[in-house]
């Protein structure tokens, strides 16, 4: 089934959504409107004729200065049909796209990494925190306008939450407990 065959099937299953076939050298590629992403993924997963049961990868590419600048890329795999599919969603840094974690749990960290590296916001993601970069990092390193080499002083983000007196009292209490 090529891109057009999948588009035909999907248009019947997800009414009102429009898909564009993308150029590709390896396997079928679809451009999906962000608003219909979750419906589309559910249809792709649950329709036996499609059967895309594994989300292999979520990543993104920054096409600055093109507008919209980001393409979020989902690679799907259908083990029963031995078929792969690539979904692409175009987005900007002002917009956000829905999470597909409810469809495939593996999306959790993959989307978190995309947010960490590109700053693409996933609506409804329960845990959108830094994953590879430190928690207090500023900026999103994989963006094309982010410098390749910068110098940053090492930071600690959590000051010690205990005073010296409390610390000593703790030690003393511990010592007493052991001697009795």
């Amino acid at each position, binding site marked *: 089934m090529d891109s057009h065959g999948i588009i035909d099937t999907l248009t019947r299953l997800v009414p009102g959504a429009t898909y564009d076939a993308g150029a590709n050298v*390896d396997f079928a590629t679809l451009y999906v409107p962000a608003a219909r992403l979750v419906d589309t993924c559910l249809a792709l997963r649950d329709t036996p004729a499609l059967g895309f049961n594994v989300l292999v990868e979520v990543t993104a590419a920054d096409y600055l200065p093109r507008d919209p600048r980001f393409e979020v890329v989902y690679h799907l795999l259908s*083990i029963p049909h031995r078929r792969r599919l690539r979904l692409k969603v175009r987005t900007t840094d002002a917009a956000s796209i829905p999470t597909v974690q409810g469809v*495939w749990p593996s999306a959790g*960290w993959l989307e978190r990494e995309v947010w960490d590296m590109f700053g693409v916001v996933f609506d409804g993601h329960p845990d959108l925190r830094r994953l590879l970069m430190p928690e207090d990092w500023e900026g999103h*390193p994989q963006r094309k306008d982010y410098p390749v080499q910068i110098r940053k002083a090492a930071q600690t983000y959590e000051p010690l939450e205990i005073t010296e007196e409390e610390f000593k009292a703790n030690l003393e209490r511990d010592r007493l407990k052991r001697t009795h």
Partner: protein
Amino acid sequence: MAELRTETMTVNMGPQHPSTHGVLRLVLELDGEVIRSAQPTIGYLHTGIEKTAEQKKWQQVVPLVERMDYLGAQSNSLAYVLCVEKLLGLEVPQRVRDIRVLIAELQRMSSHLIWLGTHAMEIGAVSMLFYAIRERELLLNINELLAGFRFFPSYLRVGGLREDLPRGFHEAVTAFLDRFPAKIDEYEGLLSGNDMFLRRTKGVGVIAQDDALAWGLLGPIARGSGCGYDVRRYFPYSGYETYDFDVPTETDGDVYARYRVRMRELRECVKICRQALARIPPTGAWACDDPRVVPPPKDKVYTEMEALIQHFLIYSQGFTVPAGDAYVPVEGPRGEHGVYAVSDGTNRPWRVKMRAPSFLAIQALPTLIRNGLIADVVAVIGSTDVVMGDCDR
């Protein structure tokens, strides 16, 4: 009598814990010895290789991707070169394809040996590590013979190989393949029926097939849960469809099943290596003859003007790759290694993304260890065979 305290305890495991395969940090919530929840923290080994790759020429990225999953180095570079060749539309000679298969299988054995040694050591069978490293040393010697570099040979190149096979390569590999099957028997003799090993691994860290696929754990973990998916079988590359081998699967989905899968894979590796070796003539083509990508032979560079210009262009500017994107997966030692590369039509990649099996395995780790004992955490981590360099990239 003092009141009994019943709150859960939070324990920090790692990032310097010796059983976390590098620098993985787990925050465990314990109820006695039972794990109620776990929170992995990664990123300690993040080196920004994907960002660095965008500054390099296409060919220069090969050594970089080898350093991501440092135990399965040449399966990373195989995925990368196949991906770039897909974008270029290059076909490499049959001999190169067979050599790549051989190298990928040797790499798989080398990676599985380190997994076997460390996994068994972490759950108590310390001497296993010495036996496994003994054979891995021979594989590293083969790498050294091949490329002068033991861990990251960078021998695979876009368009073929770096150079022809060295003299004595066939003999070295044959000597290893003759020796190795008896050694696998030795490993299995030490572990497969070992009562202590069985008690530590059977029924521990169980994951069902549907869960394994939902978490994207393609590779030995899914095969341990009964899923027969193997990239070499489902989406053959480099001519794997012409090789005779089995894809081992187990149905229990526990630590022991994953151990069995990898041990049987070692035997399949030997089978594939023997077939590949028989197909590779000692001398012959080691790269395609596309002058855009492969530099001309040295004797022509010294005697012909066009060859000199071509040599200069390739080494100063590299080659350009047509605009577009491609995702190419290979079956790495840890599962599906994939490279997604985007080209904007210039001599440098616009984006290179590695699909890291360890990343997904660590994401699923809390599911695997929940409601298990704290002592089983190291057994489960070992059985997922995570490499933090692969996870953090």
